[in-house]
């Protein structure tokens, strides 16, 4: 037998072979139930809410018009894409999860708006710029984690 003949015969072998016995019962007996409980992202969301809540108090007195930086625009775009992905399948997450998400996003968005106004008043305010990017990053992290949640 030459190499070409061997190659041809190897190519003809079936890629799928049914096992002689039903293996499924032995598998199901070993499947551990999935853990149910609070969403894994909830602690992070709570921490974010605390941080941005504190920031809001600091920025609430600063009033100005928003002028987003290029970084802020990019983060905003990605966050918008993630929200669109969530909205495509609104029934995939539990109502309580969606409510918690909306609540946390509202707090974060308020802090973002405040920081933008502060930057509009003083574009050179490095602290405000740093905080803005940090809060937007936290907003993105929250959305990314929600996107990765197992769907119901």
């Amino acid at each position: 037998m030459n190499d070409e003949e061997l190659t041809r015969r190897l190519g003809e072998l079936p890629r799928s072979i049914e096992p002689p016995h039903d293996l499924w019962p032995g598998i199901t007996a070993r499947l551990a139930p999935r853990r149910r409980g609070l969403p894994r992202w909830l602690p992070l969301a709570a921490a974010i809410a605390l941080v941005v809540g504190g920031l809001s108090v600091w920025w609430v007195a600063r009033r100005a018009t928003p002028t987003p930086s290029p970084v802020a625009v990019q983060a905003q775009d990605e966050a918008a894409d993630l929200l669109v992905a969530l909205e495509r399948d609104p029934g995939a997450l539990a109502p309580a999860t969606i409510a918690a998400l909306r609540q946390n996003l509202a707090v974060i968005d308020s802090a973002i708006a405040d920081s933008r106004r502060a930057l509009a008043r003083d574009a050179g305010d490095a602290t405000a710029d740093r905080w803005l990017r940090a809060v937007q990053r936290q907003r993105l992290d929250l959305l990314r984690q929600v996107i990765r949640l197992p769907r119901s």
Partner: protein
Amino acid sequence: MVDDAPSPGDNLRVDAGQSDLVRRAQTGDTDAFGQLYRQHVGRVYALCLRLEADVARAEELVQDVFVRVWERLPGFRGESAFGTWLHRLAVNVVLGDRRAAWRRERRVFAVESPEVHETPRDVDPALALDLETAIAALPPGARTVLVLHDLEGYQHAEIAVMTGIAEGTSKAQLFRARRLLRERLGA
């Protein structure tokens, strides 16, 4: 042959219905997981059987593979097709099991090298050999590379990573496997 080999998991490409099954199984739906099992068990069993050349061992490994899939499924992000991901996991389970067995044997028999286990299995020359039988009779190292490369479509670089051998060794093992097959089938 080498370049024309199918891509790993080619026959396991995910479809829209399958992504729904995957998502449900990720949340703990064992019925959905059962459907995924039925769709893929044939391909996984063929892989295990050809790598191990032992029906009972292949059945045990198939069960191990699907239990591992269940455990890892929540971490599956869909970056590759589900079938491709499952297939790679199956290869890792089989090879990992083999390494563990070899370590146990090495402790018991104080063997210096796995090469001592690399002798071809005895095959009665009077029997008319079919290709599957000839593959099963190959030395384990050569059989592994032949199955992964020629039947499953992995490249030598990937096989080297999966098996822990050098890429050149993978090529040498494939050459050896094909030579042995030609000799046995051509007689």
